[in-house]
């Protein structure tokens, strides 16, 4: 059964992948990319990686698609036929692929419980998490505590992307809070969007604070939080969205999240521990861990949400009435 589901999903991924290479309409390719990402999210669920699936669905299928759509709207819709065909890329790809397949031959079998990855390091995470960290979701405990420093690096990466987009595209504050030209036609969408907006934010908070117990955490929450505002900007116009959450504030928030995360790490040092040591944050280690994880996840969420909105505003404010570029009408 497991293999059957795997094969079907992998087959669908292959079909989508080949279609992406072949098709020349970039809009269609964008939608296919989104589908590719959704299929892989499904595959992640089947492979027990629920946290990853949630992230892939939110980031890969959600935000990346929006960015791609915005870019396609600002550039060309059709890809030109290459003027010359060269065999070199095909050769490089074939060689790389052959090398990888050669490498698989000595790999442990798929799902083999005796593979080295399941014997060393990882079992201890599962065994020790309940007593050392005290949260049921092992992914959260590894992400936020055992390998918390990687996560700090990851927040820094997304912060870098935010600064980069800020420098490259800029976020220009709109003086006019103009309404989209076809504002009256969006009544249905606006009503529904207003209905969903608070629920999306609520869901984001649920994902943030429930990350210890189920799939979720700072990243996913940040992305969901940002999509709420993206929905608002789509239906109510960019000007109004920027009145709700001014771009100047976004830069500060993006920095604040990273600072909150590092502050937790430095606090650990000040209290006589190592950098990012949460045990010293409270009287007993486990509540210290809880506090540390909660704080850093919040920091992650703030930065991710702010950066995604910076990126979104950067792309859509690139031409007058930018938000209309992706308006459904």
């Amino acid at each position: 059964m497991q293999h059957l589901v795997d094969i079907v999903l992998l087959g669908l991924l292959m079909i989508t992948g080949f279609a992406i290479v072949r098709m020349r309409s970039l809009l269609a390719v964008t939608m296919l990319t989104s589908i590719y990402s959704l299929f892989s999210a499904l595959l992640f669920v089947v492979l027990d990686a629920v946290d990853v699936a949630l992230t892939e669905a939110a980031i890969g299928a959600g935000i990346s698609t929006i960015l791609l759509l915005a870019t396609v709207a600002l550039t060309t819709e059709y890809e030109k036929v290459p003027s010359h065909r060269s065999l070199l890329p095909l050769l490089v790809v074939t060689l790389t692929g052959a090398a990888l397949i050669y490498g698989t031959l000595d790999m442990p079998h798929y799902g083999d419980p005796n593979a080295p990855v399941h014997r060393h390091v990882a079992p201890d995470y599962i065994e020790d998490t309940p007593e050392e960290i005290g949260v049921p979701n092992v992914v959260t405990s590894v992400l936020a505590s055992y390998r918390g420093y990687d996560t700090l690096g990851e927040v820094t990466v997304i912060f870098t992307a935010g600064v980069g987009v800020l420098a490259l595209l800029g976020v220009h504050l709109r003086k006019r809070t103009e309404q989209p030209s076809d504002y009256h036609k969006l009544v249905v969408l606006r009503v529904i969007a207003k209905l969903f907006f608070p629920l999306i934010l609520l869901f984001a908070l649920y994902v943030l604070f429930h990350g210890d117990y189920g799939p979720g955490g700072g990243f996913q929450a940040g992305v969901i939080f940002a999509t709420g505002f993206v929905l608002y900007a789509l239906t109510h116009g960019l000007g109004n969205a920027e009145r709700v959450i001014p771009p100047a504030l976004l830069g500060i928030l993006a920095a604040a999240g990273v600072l909150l995360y590092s502050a937790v790490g430095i606090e650990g040092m000040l209290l006589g521990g190592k950098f990012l040591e949460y045990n010293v944050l409270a009287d007993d280690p486990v509540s210290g861990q809880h506090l540390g994880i909660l704080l850093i996840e919040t920091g992650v969420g703030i930065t991710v949400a702010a950066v995604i909105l910076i990126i979104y505003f950067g792309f859509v404010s690139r031409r007058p009435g930018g938000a209309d570029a992706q308006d459904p009408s």
Partner: protein
Amino acid sequence: MLDILLDILSWILLLGGALFLLTGAIGVLRFPDFYSRLHAVSVCDTLGAGMVLLGLMLQGGLTLVTVKLMLIFYFMVFSGPTAVHALAEAAQVSGLDPVEDDREDG
């Protein structure tokens, strides 16, 4: 006894839902123009996915899972028609006319 009955009922719902979803997919492929295809998608999807969710709720019993499924159902009831509405509106605004005679392939 009740368990088996619920199980059978939920499977009927699941399979029925799947059937509707499949019908919708065939409709998208076979119908002549954009609007009728949209029609196939929206009607079958709402019903099919609703039935699947209901079937899953019966499987879940009275647990937190069922509550979450109900929330998904609520979300879908609103978002499905809205999305289709937005699509149809976008098509109309960009000047796509419905095909009235199905022999002229749109």
